[in-house]
Structure formats: structure tokens, C-alpha cells
């Protein structure tokens, strides 16, 4: 089941959704837009050693990891 993993102070929060459930799918897409709109980076794994940044919602991605905007330390 596809999972959206959002990094936060708890480590991460996970949202699983069923791609055959229209309501759940719409909610996941809305979450994607909201997080990326807030400056989160969305990334998916495209191979065992390959990660890709995505700008549009991919419902088929097994896992999408979101991390907050980067800042200079």
C-alpha cells in the first residue's frame, strides 16, 4: 500500500492510502500539494541506490518521503 512518510519531531508520521479508494487518493494528493506548498521536498526511490525528487503527486510510488525546507546551519 502506498505510504507518504513525513519527517517530523517524532521521527516521521506515515499516511497509508489505497489507490482504489477515490477519497483516500484525493486526500493523499491534497497532502502532497499542501506539504510541497509549505516547502517540503518530496522524494521517491527509483532503484536500490537511486532517489528522485518529484514535483507532482505519484500515486504509484510505494513510499514518498517528505522533508522540510533546507537551511544553512
Amino acid at each position, binding site marked *: 500500500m502506498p505510504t507518504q512518510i513525513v*519527517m517530523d*519531531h*517524532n521521527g516521521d508520521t506515515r499516511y497509508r492510502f489505497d489507490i482504489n479508494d477515490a477519497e483516500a487518493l484525493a486526500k493523499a494528493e491534497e497532502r502532497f500539494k499542501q506539504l510541497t506548498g509549505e*516547502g517540503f521536498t518530496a522524494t521517491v*526511490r527509483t532503484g*536500490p541506490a537511486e532517489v528522485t*525528487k518529484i514535483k507532482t503527486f505519484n500515486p504509484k510510488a510505494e513510499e514518498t518521503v517528505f522533508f*522540510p525546507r*533546507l537551511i544553512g*546551519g
Partner: protein
Amino acid sequence: MLGARRVPIAWRSRFRALRRLYSRYYDENTPEARGLRLLRAWLSPSQFEQFDAKGYFDVIGSATGSKYRIQYGTSMNVYELDDTGRLKVGWCFVPQGCLVAGDVMLAQKIALETFESRALSIAKRFVPFGRLRD
């Protein structure tokens, strides 16, 4: 007398076993443990091995092909390496907010592997200290 000695030993043993059990449960449910689990799941097989053995892993920058070393930590933990494997320069950049080490390191890895130039434009340089060599 012997019976009285046996009971505390048995209890001590049981207590130790319980403590180990709770400690394991606690470790598996802390934000730190979750962050490390996520990081490990997203490392390449070679990075996974390197991190488990040495506490750091190397990544290749997407734009320049430079090699970086990400050490366990939440700040001032990314180093660019020279051709001989020496620490050349430190780059400090982190995801905003209060995140655990595993999450910070995963964000740094993804940033360098997918949008290196932008990550470095945000980062602050620092003079590396210590060795961190193979």
C-alpha cells in the same frame, strides 16, 4: 539461608530480562529509532554497510560528482572529500525544524544526490576538524 540467596538471584535475573525487553521496546519506538530505521531503509546497500561499520556513509554529488561523507549527527556533519579521501571542506545544511539524526542525515543524502548545487548554495562552509578516514 541458601533458599534466601536463591530468590534474590532469580529476581535479579528476571529484572534484567525485563529491563532488556523494555529497553528494546523503548528503543524501537523512540523518534531516534524511527529516524534511523527510515535512514537505513533508504541507504544504498554499500552506504548501509559503511554506516553500520563506521557510523558514516559516503554520497556522490549529483552535479559535480564530488564525494561527500555524512557522519552521524544533526549539524556540521557533512564533509566534502578530496581525491585522497581527506576532509576538504565542511558543509552545514539541515532540514528546518527539530528533527532526529536519522532524518537529518537522510535529507542531507537526498539533497546531495538529487540537487547538490542548490543544497550547497544554502549551506554554510566550515573548516573540517578530526579525521573520519577509512
